[in-house]
């Protein structure tokens, strides 16, 4: 039967995508179900920091060790998703220098290179850093693009036979006595239920995993912790900036592509609010105030957008009060824990350790289904990272230089697949992020794009300074042009995209952001005559 698999993975974040890839590389027939698009949960809503582990060195040795190991592996297998920037842990006068020696010692114990450098040297390396700094330690922190990373895992999983179904939401875990035998899922595009069967069902739903486990009558005590971040309109720093003190709110500034990110706050939220993240003015104030201590120029840098993710912290099984939480990886075999066969939960952890989480989960799946293949994800490069940037660049010499650079950074060696034979294909849809028509077409054809927000995650269309001012409309036009039957859907989609962007802009809508918003209102509501009446009616 074609709805039967070895394993069903619930959740299209980095972990789920990693498991799908690991399984398919080991010859396990996998189906991944995601209720929305890939990377829409915590995976796409964090710093994008390629931790060296230094941040955890003092407080959580085990996590620090995992981080530095995965850090080194990612630089090899996901080179096109990673930027090796290095990071600085700076001590400000108010922090003092006592923590620095504790910190350096802890890093060394965890196997993390940590070089104490002179404050002058630190400012030479990172001119945006607060000039008042009294000490600095250089560590191998970096930047990782979680969208690219997840998308690449998905691509590879599919190339090796996995089936990926986005916009398909698991409604029920199908049970036969003490065994989960499959799931009933709702297809949000076809508007129908479908049943899928497998020997093992993996709950990789992040914070939503709490609700998924509950469908099997199983309690996984998760504590939703909201973390808010701000994105700045240009790249302020080149090295990751951290405060050299006990980890606290808003003390990491991460560069990424054309922007910088400050984060995060940390606050507990009720479970029923996890789909409804609103950034408060207090959070914005805190992020700005603390951010300026790392890099004073943030005070005058334009903020593009605010957003929040929810970390899946898991309370220890032996502490019902939920006070003892682990940031480490939590793998639960519900057969041994709850007497429910065929069902496992993988959670906790972080983006940094997604591959290790996938390895652990897949090892357990293998044990359950009697597969003896070894994990290969630690050394097999992801699609996009099989050739060096220089090599890819040479193959693409005929393309305009900035576009070539942008598309290679987004797609790695797969950039050669972007059709650029005609001048029309080379025309830009999005000027801020240098996205060409050819790249949009490539994404539409190969990267499972269902709507404009999906497209943004694959290509960065609408992510730049203008936040989709005109490029959203252009991309909608291209999608409508490819499939004229769906012109109405493309228009509704544009409305959803604008609503989605506005949610991130509203918390910080003053100055130029408010200018752009007013302009967008004129263009879309007045000139184009769009309204969300149709979308509201549809709901």
């Amino acid at each position, binding site marked *: 039967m074609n709805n039967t698999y070895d394993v069903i993975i619930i959740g299209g974040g980095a972990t789920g995508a990693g498991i799908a890839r690991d399984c398919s590389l080991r010859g396990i027939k996998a189906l991944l179900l995601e209720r929305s698009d890939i990377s829409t949960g915590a995976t796409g809503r964090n710093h994008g920091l390629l931790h060296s582990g230094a941040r955890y060195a003092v407080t959580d040795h085990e996590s620090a060790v995992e981080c530095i190991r995965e850090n080194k592996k990612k630089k090899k297998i996901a080179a096109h998703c990673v930027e090796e920037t290095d990071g600085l842990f700076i001590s400000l006068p108010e922090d003092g220098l006592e923590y620095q020696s504790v910190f350096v010692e802890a890093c060394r114990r965890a196997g993390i290179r940590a070089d104490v450098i002179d404050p002058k040297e630190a400012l030479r390396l990172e001119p945006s850093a607060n000039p008042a700094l009294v000490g600095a330690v250089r560590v191998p922190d970096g930047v990782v693009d979680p969208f690219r990373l997840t998308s690449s895992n998905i691509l590879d999983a599919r190339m090796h036979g996995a089936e990926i179904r986005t916009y398909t939401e698991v409604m029920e875990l199908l049970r036969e006595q003490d065994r989960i035998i499959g799931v009933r899922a709702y297809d949000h595009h076809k508007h129908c239920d479908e049943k899928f069967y497998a020997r093992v069902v993996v709950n990789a739903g992040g914070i939503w995993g709490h609700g998924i486990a509950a469908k099997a009558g199983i309690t996984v005590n998760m504590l939703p912790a909201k973390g808010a971040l701000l994105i700045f309109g240009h790249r302020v720093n080149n090295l990751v900036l951290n405060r050299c003190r006990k980890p606290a709110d808003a003390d990491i500034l991460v560069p990424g592509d054309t922007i910088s990110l400050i984060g995060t706050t940390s606050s507990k939220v009720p479970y029923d609010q996890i789909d409804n993240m*609103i950034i408060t*003015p207090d959070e914005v104030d805190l992020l700005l105030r603390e951010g300026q201590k790392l890099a004073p120029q943030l005070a005058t840098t334009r903020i593009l957008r605010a957003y929040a993710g929810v970390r899946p912290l898991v309370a220890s099984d032996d502490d019902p009060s939920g006070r003892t939480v682990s940031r480490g990886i939590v793998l639960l075999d519900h057969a041994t824990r709850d007497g429910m066969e065929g069902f496992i939960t993988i959670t906790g952890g972080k983006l940094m350790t997604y591959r290790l989480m996938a390895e652990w989960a897949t090892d357990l799946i293998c044990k359950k289904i009697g597969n003896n293949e070894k994990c290969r994800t630690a050394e097999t490069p992801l699609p996009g990272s099989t050739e060096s940037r220089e090599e890819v660049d040479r193959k693409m010499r005929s393309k*305009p230089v900035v*576009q070539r650079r942008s598309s290679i950074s987004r797609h790695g060696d797969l950039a050669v697949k972007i059709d650029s034979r005609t*001048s*029309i294909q*080379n*025309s*830009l*849809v999005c*000027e801020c992020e240098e996205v*060409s*028509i050819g790249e949009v077409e490539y994404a539409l054809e190969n990267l499972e794009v269902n709507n404009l927000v999906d497209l943004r995650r694959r290509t960065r269309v609408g992510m730049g300074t203008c936040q989709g001012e*005109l490029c959203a*409309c*252009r991309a*909608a*036009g*291209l999608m*409508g*042009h490819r499939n*004229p039957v769906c*012109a*109405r859907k*493309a*228009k509704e989609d544009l*409305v959803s995209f*604008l*609503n989605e*962007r*506005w*949610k991130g802009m*509203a918390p910080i*809508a*003053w*100055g130029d952001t*408010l*200018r752009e*918003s*007013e*302009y*967008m*209102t*004129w*263009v879309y*509501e*007045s*000139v*184009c*005559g*769009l*309204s*969300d009446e149709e979308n509201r009616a549809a709901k």
Partner: protein
Amino acid sequence: MRFDTVIIGGGLAGMACGIRLAQAGQRCAIVSQGQSAIHFSSGSFDLLGRLPGGEAVSDPVAGMAALAECCPSHPYAVIGAENCARYAQEAPGLLREAGIRVAGDCRRNHFRITPMGKAKATWLSIDGYLTTPQVGEFPFKSVCIVNIEGFLDFYPEFIAEELRKYNIECRFGSFNHPDLEQIRRNPSEMRSANIARVFDHDANLEALAEALRQQATGCDALILPALIGINRNDSLEYLRERVGLPIYLLPTLPPSIPGIRAQQALQHRFRALGGEYFLGDSVLSSEIEQGRVARIFTANHGNIPFEARRFVLATGSFFSKGLVATFDRIVEPVFGADTVSRPSRSEWYTLHFFDRHEYQAFGVRTDNRLRVVKEGAVLENLYAVGAGLAGFHPVQEGCGAGVSLLSALHVAEQILKD
């Protein structure tokens, strides 16, 4: 430099005010930073499409009278219903005298068709643009919608999707030309103004006519993106004649060719009437003496002041930087005038993009003669016009152009009466 009146801002409101004053013989100057909201014009001028509660307006004059009752702080209410009706009769003449060929009736809205094919109620539309007397009453049964190949700011499929709801048969056509290939060499150049310049050449216009004639066979009419005639007036008539079919234009995403043309026409008219137009200049500071603006200083003129008996603030709202939102308040940057706004940022907007957001109605505080208030006191000789006024939602109410034109005429009349 001494003038009767100095107007700060060269958008629709500033221009209209300047033209009216210059017509009356005033020595008038306009200081303009260059870009204004006209650059994203739709090819039409809206007077009033909806009341603040959302009710559709079919007779704008009646609608303005209703507004005067229900919304006393709306600029139309401040100007007064009778005055509004009078200015609404006058305004089309002002535009036509400037060479902007508009048609429409302030007692009855018609509908403009947007680049997405939607119908929006409007007052005056420029000749050649597709309009309908009622929603869905198109002047054709079948139409060929032609785009320029590689032009991304116009959406034939979206337009067809709307037109088909009214049983209009839609076909698509496209046009390409070697001169367009030149533009495409630079990947970000396929934008409206660059393409429009290509069609200012006779030979290219002729090639377009030829292609249109072939593609439109069997259709009643053609729809084109508004990409023709940026520097000449006869392009559309020429095409219509050569093709032998009605041709209708639809606006594109910005920059808007009808907007650029309207801007040029108004500027030309103002200068022809003896007005002095300082383009690319901006006001840096002002001096206020005894409750009156005495002089202003600009970036390009250093310590040479602009002096005048009266000043008009026509600097627009946020987009044109006539209003600036800081972290916690709304500032009018030229004179530091008082503004009408809400104290808490969370009251400025809702979380839904298409909602009516309060910030859109923020603006400069004025008295009932549209004189600007600073620190609680009226500045005797400083008037405000246009988008920077408070108390209205230009987009939701479909009254942006109307408020600009009517407030400009009203202030001109105040100045001339004094």
